[in-house]
C-alpha cells in the first residue's frame, strides 16, 4: 500500500502497479471497508487505486493516513462475496456497428467475434467516466481492438463496446471511440438501483446473446 497526496483535500492509495484481479480485489475490499465509515467524504475505487476525499478541516494528511491504515489492517482477511451478473446482449449487425470492420481486421467471422466475447467471464474493475459506466476486463486477445481513430459523435444508449482488452456498455447516448459489437436493453444507470449503477466494482459478468425479438421485448430500441 502506497499513499500519495491527490489534492488539498484528497489522497490516493495505490495497491499495486499492474492490472490484475488480485489487486482489484484488494481495492474493492478497502473500498467497502472504508465506505462503512462515515468520515470519508468521497471514495473512488479504480483498477489499482482508491481515491479518498476527507475533511481536511478535521484531519491532517498524516492523521488520515494513519486512520486508514488502522481501518484496513483487518480487511485482507475478509473475503467479500462478489456477485455473478448476467447481461443480455443483442449482437445483430444493425446494432453492432463495428462487427464487420473488426471481423475484417482480425481475420475472424462476425460469429467468431461474438462467441469469443460471450465465452469469457469479465471482472468489473471500475465504475466511472460517466454515471454507471463499468470498465470490465479482459477480452480475449483475439478480439482486443484499439479505440477508433475517429470517435463517433453519437453512440446509442446500451451499446456494448471494446477498447483494447476492456469491454463496457454506454449507459446513455454519448460520443465515444469504443468498437461497438452489440446492444443491451438493460438500463446501466437508474435511481432504482443501489448506488444507481447496474454493476458494482468486483462483479463477475457474463454476456448472454439474445435474439432481436427478445431484445425488443425487453425494452431495447434499434
Amino acid at each position, binding site marked *: 500500500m502506497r499513499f*500519495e*497526496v*491527490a*489534492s488539498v483535500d484528497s489522497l490516493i492509495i495505490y495497491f499495486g502497479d499492474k492490472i490484475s484481479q488480485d489487486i482489484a480485489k484488494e481495492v474493492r475490499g478497502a*473500498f467497502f471497508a472504508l465506505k462503512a465509515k462515515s468520515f470519508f467524504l468521497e471514495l473512488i475505487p479504480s483498477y489499482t487505486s482508491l*481515491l479518498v476525499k476527507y475533511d481536511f478541516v478535521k484531519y491532517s494528511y498524516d492523521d488520515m493516513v494513519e486512520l486508514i491504515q488502522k481501518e484496513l489492517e483487518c480487511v485482507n482477511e475478509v473475503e467479500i462475496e462478489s456477485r455473478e451478473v448476467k447481461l443480455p446482449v443483442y449482437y445483430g449487425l444493425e446494432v453492432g456497428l463495428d462487427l464487420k470492420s473488426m471481423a475484417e481486421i482480425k481475420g475472424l467471422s462476425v460469429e467468431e467475434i461474438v462467441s469469443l466475447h460471450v465465452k469469457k467471464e469479465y471482472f468489473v474493475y471500475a465504475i*466511472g*467516466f460517466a454515471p454507471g459506466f463499468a470498465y470490465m476486463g479482459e477480452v480475449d486477445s483475439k478480439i482486443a481492438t484499439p479505440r477508433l481513430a475517429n470517435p463517433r459523435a453519437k453512440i446509442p444508449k446500451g451499446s456494448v463496446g471494446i477498447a483494447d482488452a476492456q469491454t463496457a456498455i454506454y449507459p446513455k447516448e454519448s460520443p465515444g471511440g469504443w468498437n461497438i459489437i452489440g446492444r443491451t436493453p438493460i438500463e446501466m444507470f437508474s435511481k432504482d438501483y443501489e*448506488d444507481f449503477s447496474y454493476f458494482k466494482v468486483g462483479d463477475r459478468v457474463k454476456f448472454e446473446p439474445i435474439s432481436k425479438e427478445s431484445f425488443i421485448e425487453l425494452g431495447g430500441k434499434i
Partner: protein
Amino acid sequence: MSGFEVLNGGVLSTIQDLGRVGLAHSGISEAGVLDELSYGYLCKLLENDFGANALEIAFGGLKLRVKGEVVFALSGATVEIKLNNKPIKMYKTYNAKDGDVLEVGFVTSGARVYLGVKGGFEVEQEFGSSSVSLKEGIGGRAIKRGDFLEFKPSRSSYSCYLKKEFQPKFETPIELRVVKAYQWDMFEDSQKEKFFNNTYEVTNQNDRMGYRLKGEKVFPLSGGIISEGIAYGAIQIPPHGEPIILLKERQTIGGYAKIGSVIRVDCFKLAQAKQGDKVKFRLVELAEAQKSCKKFNNFFSQKVIR
C-alpha cells in the same frame, strides 16, 4: 406562484449549489458552483446558508421579469446590471416587485456572475443537489426563454452591501498554487522547472469540466497511467503536453499523468478566467495550502445568525 420569468436565458445559465459529494464511485460528477468565493459572498449578503442554490450565469446576457416580490443580489464577474432600465450595483441586496425587469449585460472582467434570491430557488433536487450537470443531464439543463424560476416571496426592510475592498477582483496573470500530488515523481526536474517558470494561457477549451491551457509543453517519463480517481483541481498532462486543470464537472476517473493539483480556493479564481488570460503556477506545501483553504471554509461555512 412567485418567480422569475425568463425572457432571455443568456449564454449559459445554470442552477448550482455546492454539488454532489459521495456519488463519484457510481460515476456521478461533483458539479456545483465554479467560483465559491463570489458565491460565498452572495450567500452572506442574502443571509442564505453556504450551500443554498444560485443561478450561475456564464458570460451574461440574461433578462428576467419578476412575478411576486423578492430580495435578490448579484456577485462574481464584473457586469452591467439594470433593474427596470436603471443601473444597479453588484454585491448589494435589492427588493424587486411584480413586473420588474432585471437585465444582466455581458461580462467585462471575469467570466461568471451569480444571481441569488433570499431562501434560494425552488427547484427539484436530483441525487441530493440542485446543481445542473450539463454533460450527464442530471439536475436539469441550462435555462432558456420561457422557463420559470420559482422562489418563495421575500421582502426586506434593509439592504446589505459588500464593501468594494472585499469584492473579488479578477486580475491577471492568475497565480495558481499547486500541491505536489499523484504522479509528481514521474516528472523530471527539468519538466517541473518549465512548468513553474513559464506563463500559460487559457485556451477556448474551457468549461465547467476543466480548463485547457497552452504554453510550454511538459512530459512525464512515461505516457499513460492506469485509470484512477480524479480530485478537484488535478492537473492532467495528456500526450500533447499542455496542462488541463479539472474542475467541478470533471469525469470521475481518467488515465493521464498528473503533475500536481491546484488548491481549491485557487480553482475558484481559475473559473473566472477567459480565453487568452495568463496563468502562472506556484508550488506550495500541503500544510500551507490546507491552511488557506481552512480559512475560506471557516469564514463562509459559519451559520448565519438570525
